[in-house]
């Protein structure tokens, strides 16, 4: 019962091979086996969003995704996306708007925000608020986070006008 399963995936641009227990969550594999502490563990039920990572270009809950499911897939965490420069403008906006305090929710917030900006570039403030309902913040009260995201959306919209 429960033999380890060999898997291979791309994590932050690097090929990774491992043999893992099927029950191991992707977020635990990333944090414990690969030392990528960017994604965090909060509720492990899919509600808080702290574990949010990107698989094959879309955000998923790392706690509701098995590492074995990532076999053959491309996984990005906040570390990799930062190194690529994919989050720079958003991160700058977060800093300007004071959208972080303890930082626990931040990696999840950044990944969720990045997908919003890509998928719904016309989002209104109300739509931004709804979108980030999947990421809990216990510190900021959210307004500064929404401000930061709106800054990016508005700058983008101004550019394309």
């Amino acid at each position, binding site marked *: *019962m*429960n033999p380890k*399963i060999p898997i291979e995936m791309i994590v932050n641009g690097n090929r990774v091979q491992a043999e893992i227990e099927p*029950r191991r969550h992707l977020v635990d594999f990333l944090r414990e086996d690969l030392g990528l502490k960017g994604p965090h563990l909060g509720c492990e039920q899919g509600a808080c*969003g702290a574990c*949010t990572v990107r698989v094959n270009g879309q955000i*998923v809950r790392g*706690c509701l995704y098995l590492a074995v499911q990532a076999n053959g897939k491309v996984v990005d965490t906040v570390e990799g996306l930062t190194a690529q420069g994919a989050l720079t403008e958003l991160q700058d906006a977060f800093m300007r708007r004071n959208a972080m305090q303890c930082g626990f929710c931040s990696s999840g917030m950044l990944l969720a925000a990045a*997908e*919003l900006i890509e998928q719904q570039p016309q989002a209104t403030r109300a739509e931004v608020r709804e979108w980030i309902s999947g990421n809990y913040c216990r510190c900021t009260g959210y307004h500064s986070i929404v401000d930061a995201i709106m800054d990016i959306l508005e700058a983008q919209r101004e550019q394309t006008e």
Partner: protein
Amino acid sequence: MKAAAFDYIKAQSVPEVLALMSEHGDDARLMAGGQTLLATLNMRLSEPQLLIDITELTELKGIEIIGEHLWVGALVTHTEIENAALVKKYAPILCAAAPHIAHRAIRNLGTWGGSLVYGDPAAEWPACSIAVNATMVVRGLQGERRILASDFFVDLYTTALAPDEILMGTEIPLANAKQVFSFQELARRHGDYAVAGLAAVAKKTGQVFSDCHFVFFSVATTPVAAVQAQSLVNDQAVNAELIAAAVAAARAEIETMEDITNSAAAKSHLVGVLLERALKKMLAE
């Protein structure tokens, strides 16, 4: 919050899945998006020996027109439905409902079929599938059969699917230009399970509605259609008086169930609130 140990297999075909289900019975669980299943396993509410990952089954995928129907495969994700031009055109209430399901990261993996076969009373898709007159196509070792959505949801977390069957997808009659709809969901926070919800669909000619479906969710153990309210409204010119009568009828006929958010009486009140909002919106279209 870590699951108990289990084995995992990624199935390559429907016959393989059916054979595995037959071999392992209750010891195995099918996994599609896993957004409900993995949360359940994390809390150790369930401890299957084997997870059968069905996400490779191409027969369960796809959104396409087949004859007079819109086919939505069981493995189609909530996000795919939200973005699909074909769904926007031929079953628009699904596009309206999709953003209410949980949160984006969950919608990227969670599936149409997974929600339908789980039969959560607070889920959006079961009520919507009834409102659009969907037919579920299921397959087992005995072969394939079709079950009307209105016959599919039997009890709390219980559908008409037999233990050896898998949902392949649904056939949805194509909406025509006369279709009007309203999807209403009340929740304490965006993405929470619904406190009460309504999937309302009708055909509208002038002020007259026909072929009405008013299907409520999160008020009972299964989605429930307000049959008498539907008959009252069918083939009548809709005005304030008729709306009030329909609201009263829906409140009287639906046996609501209390839950952690509201009493049965409060749920009955909300049934009326949602129906009134839906009828007014559909009238204004």
